[in-house]
């Protein structure tokens, strides 16, 4: 019964969180904190913090965390499967239609508008991450950025990483790991 409840709660979270990332947060809060009391509000904030520090989507992370807390490993698996189940069905259906009809001029026309927009969405997400990395989240709005508060280490890491990526085209994971190592040295030991 508990497993069924876990599955159903995260099924709804997976189904209604369109837009990804933090759009899912209020939904998760409603299901996990307000309706089922699986986590306290403080614990929920902790889950969000963990999600920022670890890889993986926030919905999957909270599903695993909550499932684990409520009923161990099996609970974690059940909640996670519930969370991705709606995506699987819907995305597979759309993928089928996309590959079947992608050459129709109607689809091509719509995609012509979508492609540049997607580039902007990625650019915007990247800039938000950059602002967070350079100003430690202290910049409240784009216009209120105080240049003297810039994190010099992060700025140097970003510029160096960018130049290396453009010039030598290495595996991006190495750049990320390298930045982590330099971060450890600079922030921890200097």
């Amino acid at each position: 019964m508990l497993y069924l409840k876990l599955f159903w709660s995260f099924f709804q979270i997976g189904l209604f969180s369109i837009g990804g990332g933090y759009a899912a947060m209020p939904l998760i809060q409603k299901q996990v904190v307000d309706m089922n009391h699986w986590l306290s509000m403080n614990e929920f904030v902790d889950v969000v913090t963990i999600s920022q520090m670890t890889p993986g989507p926030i919905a999957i992370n909270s599903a695993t965390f909550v499932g684990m807390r409520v009923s161990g490993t099996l609970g974690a698996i059940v909640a996670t499967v519930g969370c991705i189940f709606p995506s699987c069905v819907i995305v597979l259906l759309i993928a089928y239609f996309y590959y079947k009809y992608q050459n129709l001029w109607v689809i091509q026309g719509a995609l012509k508008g979508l492609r540049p927009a997607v580039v902007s969405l990625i650019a915007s997400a990247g800039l938000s991450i950059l602002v967070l990395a350079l100003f430690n989240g202290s910049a409240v709005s784009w216009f209120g950025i105080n240049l003297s508060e810039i994190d010099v280490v992060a700025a140097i890491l970003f510029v160096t990483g960018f130049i290396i990526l453009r010039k030598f085209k290495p595996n991006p994971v190495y750049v990320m790991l390298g930045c982590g190592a330099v971060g450890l040295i600079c922030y921890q030991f200097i």
Partner: protein
Amino acid sequence: MHTPLPYLDKAVACIYDKIISKLRLMGDTSLYMNKSIRLYGKLFTSTFYLSAFTFGGGYVIIPLMHKKFVEKYRWIEEKEMLDLTAIAQSTPGAMAVNASILIGYRLAGVFGAFVTILGTILPPLIILSVISLFYNEFQENAVIKAILKGMNAGVAAVVADVTVTMGKGIINEKNMFAVLIMIVSFSAVFFFNMDVILIILACAILGLAVTIYGRYKQRGMT
């Protein structure tokens, strides 16, 4: 090469298919099996690896996938990757999961999608399970904090790199409409915090409208 008899190609292809299916029925599947198992293995390891390094939410996995599947393996075209991103963004669920479902389906069908889903959800599943047991120690660890802070800057560099590559692709098409959409939708998201779904819908409709107008004008001329 152009054959004078278009039917010949089809006939050859048909015979070829029949031979292949016969061979498979006869049990001589080792070559065929090996190839598909290797593909599934590659799909699993690459999605597992990418998912383990997707710090900072949904959009970060797109640049990583772009690097791996478009630039390294050349399995997917640049334009197609943008289409898949648009679909992943506008369907329900986590963007990383949706994107890997699409890539798995594209490269190896429904079973391929299941392989990539597994690869994508296993790293967070394992990591969060462990962390939920040691949460307090993890949160207060200064070493982990310092590493993650450095990695944030690295993630920003990776995203910036792929954005430049993708943006160049759009600009090189020398299409004013595309560049305009790029500028306007960027300001709408970044400066005005507009709803992403709304922007995607608006851009799809705009693209469709421009195409219809183009077709209408063309028909008027001839």
